[in-house]
């Protein structure tokens, strides 16, 4: 086992523990999480698998394939988060607006 493998698997392990402690709400979430962790660990320990997948897809190295897909995933995550922030902003606006109008009604 090389140094990088130890480093990455410990990282994944820490994230996994953190998630299980914080977000253990539904079976589905845990299932997806377990799947992702398993995939991550497998790819870390046997990087040749990503290499062969990458070659099939026309990408030179496995590491590059991982890089490209993670860009896509992060893009998606950012959009999702942004949509959620907007929703939150709208909710706050509604609450503040209602409060402002109610207060003004009370004064008259």
């Amino acid at each position, binding site marked *: 086992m090389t140094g990088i493998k130890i480093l990455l698997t410990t990282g994944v392990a820490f994230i996994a523990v953190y998630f299980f402690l914080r977000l253990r709400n539904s079976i589905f979430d845990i299932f997806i999480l377990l799947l992702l962790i398993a995939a991550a660990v497998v790819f870390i320990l046997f990087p040749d698998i990503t290499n062969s997948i990458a070659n099939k897809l026309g990408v030179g190295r496995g590491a590059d394939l991982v890089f490209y897909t993670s860009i896509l995933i992060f893009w998606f995550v950012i959009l999702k988060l*942004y*949509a959620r922030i*907007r929703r939150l*902003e*709208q909710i*706050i*606006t509604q609450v*503040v*607006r209602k*409060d*402002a*109008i109610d*207060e*003004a009604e009370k*004064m*008259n």
Partner: protein
Amino acid sequence: MLNQNNSDSIFVIIPFYNENTVIREVIERLLPYNYKIILVDDGSTKSPVDILSDINPLHYLRHKVNLGQGASIQTGIDFALQKGAKWLVTFDADGQHLASDIESLLLPLQNNEADICIASRFLEKGKHNATKGRKITLKVGRWVNYFFTGLFLSDAHNGLRAMNRLAAEKINLKENRMAHATEFLLAIKKNKLRYKEVSASVLYSDYSREKGQSVFSSIRIFFDLVLHKLFE
């Protein structure tokens, strides 16, 4: 000319954020017209209530936190509609508009020629003292608005507008910050409202220039618009 009874159902909505030094003068200039005034304080650090305590026909609404000018205008519109407004006017708090221009914006509405009138500083000569940078920004803004809404107005971003109840009921500003000028155009387009541009002055004082938006905030508006299109 408008008669007294009529001005009872005219509501002037002033979005306010920390313009404490000029707000009294702005409101005093509106008073002779007997409009109902709604001041929407967008969570200013220092409440203007002390300065305005003796001005009586005034509705004061306060956002507990700062949301942005678009949100303030929408709050004002909601409140005015609740109060039975027939005609609604939006008016900037920094003193860049003339109170006397409101009548000429209301005229097409009251003659039932339009549902919403938008002030423009570029229809006649000598109605503005915008700097060169701002003029260029507004010119680009026209095209941006055209690109997003299909409406090509002479003034891209003017805080002075008047609308009838029908139009106000259709307006639902979701952009809390400054992209609301374009959102008005989107609402016009979507609801097939009759609109008209009316010539009105925009006179920046040193105060409003300092307080107002810089040319760079137009970039922010542009991105708000792009995201608005993406997420609505």
